[in-house]
């Protein structure tokens, strides 16, 4: 299975895969993102956390050319990708999922994945019309790969199901499969665990781990489930009000007073205690997972 999915271009060229400098984005008068610098190391899992409305999704949108940044430079593997149209950003090796799942609803799961392969397939118009042997071979390969990918994310039995008829959790997995199958260098997950119960979140952690280790894909994820974040992230960037509040390893972040104030809330002392307790509980689980 993993040979079908194997990534051809492994091996670090440089340490930093994604390099964002001075990114800014404002909507009308509202500065949703202000002068954000972000650098993501190759092969790492990098988490972005922060209060609601902090600008996390907007950063994703800027990187994937969903919205046009107002300022800043974005580099992937040393190449400028800001200002390019979305499909060319994708061609550089960026793939993502969405906070509100966005699948091709009236296509089946496997077709969704096949669309994800578009970039990899090379058949020309004439090749398709004349049904050349090359095209047929490629098509068969693509299907095999798509099946393998569904298997990889754990929903092989859904291949023929229309995307809109799948339960939410499976839709999230399908979205990941669709993004992954194009062999991106960078996979950006926007709240992948939202709407999952803790047990399912746990399974997701395993999936992300495998994406990194088996497929060698660098992952950025936005997440509010601390359990997931702490279990998987190599580094964490904390956003607040459109700017970076803190950045560091999980242990550093969970000890950061500012983060606790801004993100975990300071209300009734009891709640605060509970929250911190909660957090350390997650951390111990994360460490157990890492061991």
């Amino acid at each position, binding site marked *: 299975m993993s040979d079908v999915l194997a990534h051809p271009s492994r091996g670090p060229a440089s340490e930093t895969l994604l390099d964002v400098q001075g990114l800014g984005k404002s*909507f009308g008068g*509202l500065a949703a993102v202000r002068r954000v610098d972000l650098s993501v190391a190759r092969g790492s899992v990098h988490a972005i*956390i*922060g*209060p*609601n*409305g*902090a600008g996390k*999704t907007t950063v994703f949108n800027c990187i994937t050319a969903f919205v046009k940044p107002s300022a800043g430079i974005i580099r992937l593997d040393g190449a400028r990708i800001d200002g390019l149209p979305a499909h060319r950003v994708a061609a550089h090796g960026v793939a993502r999922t969405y*906070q*509100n799942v966005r699948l091709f609803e009236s296509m089946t799961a496997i077709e969704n994945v096949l669309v994800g392969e578009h970039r990899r397939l090379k058949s020309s118009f004439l090749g398709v019309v004349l049904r050349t042997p090359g095209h047929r071979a490629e098509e068969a390969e693509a299907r095999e790969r798509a099946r393998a990918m569904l298997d990889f994310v754990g929903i092989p039995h859904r291949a023929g199901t229309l995307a809109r*008829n*799948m*339960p*939410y*959790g*499976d839709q999230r997995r399908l979205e990941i499969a669709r993004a992954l199958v194009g062999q991106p260098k960078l996979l950006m997950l926007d*709240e992948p665990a*939202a*709407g*999952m*119960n*803790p*047990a*399912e*979140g*746990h399974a997701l952690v395993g999936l992300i781990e495998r994406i990194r280790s088996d497929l060698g894909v660098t992952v950025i994820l936005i997440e*509010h489930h*601390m*359990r997931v974040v702490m279990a998987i992230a190599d580094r964490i960037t904390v956003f607040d009000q459109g700017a970076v509040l803190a950045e560091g390893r999980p242990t550093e972040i969970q000890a950061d007073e500012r983060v606790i104030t801004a*993100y*975990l*809330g300071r*209300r009734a002392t009891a*709640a605060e205690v509970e*929250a911190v307790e*909660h957090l350390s509980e997650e951390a111990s689980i994360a460490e157990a997972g890492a061991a």
Partner: protein
Amino acid sequence: MSVNLQVSNLTVTYGAIAAVRGVSFSAAAGEIVTIVGANGAGKTTVLNALCGLRTIGGGAIVLDGEDITALPPHERVRRGISQVPEGRRLFGRMTVAENLEIGGYTRSDRAEKRHDLDHVLELFPRLKERYRQLAGTLSGGEQQMVAMGRALMARPRFLLLDEPTMGLAPQIVDLVLESIKRVNREGVTILLVEQNAYRALEIADRAFVLESGEISLTGPGDVLLNHPQVRSAYLGFDG
């Protein structure tokens, strides 16, 4: 102001597939009832059937002794059922203010509405800052707050919440759960669907587990919280 909801033998099908099969439960006035279940278990479907968004295949829904099974959704709202739907379903091209205001569409008591609005803004101060922004451009968490606020503006007697903490930062999760409790204390009966089963069961008076469209377990919230089956399947505590 007592509400009593009685659901018996509820069945909902999508084409050939029965998403909910013969579900019966009840909620007494002032209770918080929680539904726990895996993805695709049919939780959303049950809620939608209760507020009339799904035509049901069989069964009966009785509110305060009145059979509301065949009523259209808006009639049910008038009888005090309100929902915070999955995925928020805000009116994206209306401002936060308009969304909140339209939440009180069925009401004509201006002063009271004003009061409730203040209440909501007090509950979610963030919304005050975003008051004139189009709801569709809010961040996920902000949208969730508006959805809650909108449902509260109808002054429901019976509030259905479908994953109200989805996508919320931990600090807001607390806030929302706190506000649910508060609303409940004010006399609103609550039916809560929540993936964060741990927190949901904590505040629930009673709960049941939905598995593939059928109820597999039922009991008081704290009992289910410690039920081994629940702990392994929904809370992520192995063993």
